[in-house]
């Protein structure tokens, strides 16, 4: 039983026009599809309630809240431990020392060991339209380091120079300075953290390394490392101007 049989005889041309329009519709649907990349650009043109729905996927507030509360819990436990140590002087010095060691680790004054990622940036050997494009600049290094911090790196060293809260990455003439110490290309950036997340951040489309990769893929090399050992910060730690306030603000 063919229910379409009458129509086939009536209009022989329906099939091609229908197929053509279907193809066009499919084309348009694919172009209108919301993906991870196009989501952020589409949010402004949707309603408030639709925005909420779209935004829900990208920011999981619940997860952030749990993380923060976990941190608060840990800090409170630390506080109690310290208070107990103050009260009982006999094992106080050990607890104080533990917390001091942790503070030193956070200040990058100790070596740091762990799994992570090594990003190597090289000057391009290919001739480029603008000659300065072929070289690695201080800004490239700075942006890469910044992106690594953002991706959750716990410690970063550039050519053996530990990056601390006081570090600077800049250039004088054609040499790059890290912590005021000259480094020579290839620039080897070691970062301790979750290697997968870090390499993901390094491979983002339109990310920090994408411009260089487009110019010459040989300029960038990323490899996961099972075990990295970052040196301690060896520069000056003297503070002339800043002091820690004694009383808490009201």
């Amino acid at each position: 039983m063919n229910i379409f049989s009458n129509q086939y005889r009536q209009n022989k041309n329906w099939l091609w026009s229908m197929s053509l329009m279907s193809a066009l519709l499919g084309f348009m649907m694919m172009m209108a599809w919301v993906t991870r990349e196009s989501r952020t650009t589409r949010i402004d043109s949707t309603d408030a309630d639709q925005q909420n729905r779209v935004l829900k996927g990208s920011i999981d507030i619940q997860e952030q809240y749990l993380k923060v509360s976990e941190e608060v819990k840990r800090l409170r436990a630390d506080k109690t431990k310290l208070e107990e140590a103050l009260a009982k002087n006999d094992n106080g010095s050990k607890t104080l020392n533990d917390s001091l060691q942790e503070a030193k680790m956070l200040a990058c004054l100790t070596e740091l060991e762990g799994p992570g990622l090594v990003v190597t940036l090289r000057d391009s050997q290919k001739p480029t339209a603008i000659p300065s494009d072929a070289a690695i600049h201080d800004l490239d290094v700075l942006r890469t380091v910044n992106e690594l911090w953002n991706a959750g790196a716990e410690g970063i060293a550039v050519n053996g120079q530990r990056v601390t809260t006081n570090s600077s990455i800049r250039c004088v003439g054609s040499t790059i300075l890290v912590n005021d110490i000259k480094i020579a290309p290839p620039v080897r950036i070691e970062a301790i953290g979750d290697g997968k997340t870090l390499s993901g951040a390094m491979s983002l489309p339109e990310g920090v390394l994408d411009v260089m990769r487009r110019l010459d893929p040989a300029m960038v090399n990323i490899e996961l490392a099972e075990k990295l050992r970052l040196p301690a910060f060896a520069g000056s730690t003297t503070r002339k101007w800043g002091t820690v306030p004694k009383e808490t603000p009201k």
Partner: protein
Amino acid sequence: MILVPFISLFLGVLGAFFLVGPIKGEAGQYLAVACLAGLDTILGGIRSLQEGKFSNDVFVTGFFSNVIIAFSLAWLGDKIFLNLFQVVALVLGARIFTNLSLIRRILLTKWHDARERKRLESLASQPQAETSRS
């Protein structure tokens, strides 16, 4: 034969996926409305095919004009701060439902008719056989 439009729909999707990819910004949002218009026109075409009123010219011009009107209405809505976007979506959504339900009804009627005809034919052949025997 009926599968050909479906296959070309997928070909269109694949083509856009490899050639253009999803487009960004407001244009993508307007295109989403235009997609609704396209879907409505195609369903309308299938319906008129069922009713035997299908005309190629009407169908093709209808497709393009509907798509363009939907796209530009959504755009105009953003320019004059009226939510014409939702107006278009609402009207086209309603039309898609109407078209689909009409297609379903026509197909059901044809199916019933065909079954009834078969039953009557078998009934008609039986007494003939009896009369020839007696």
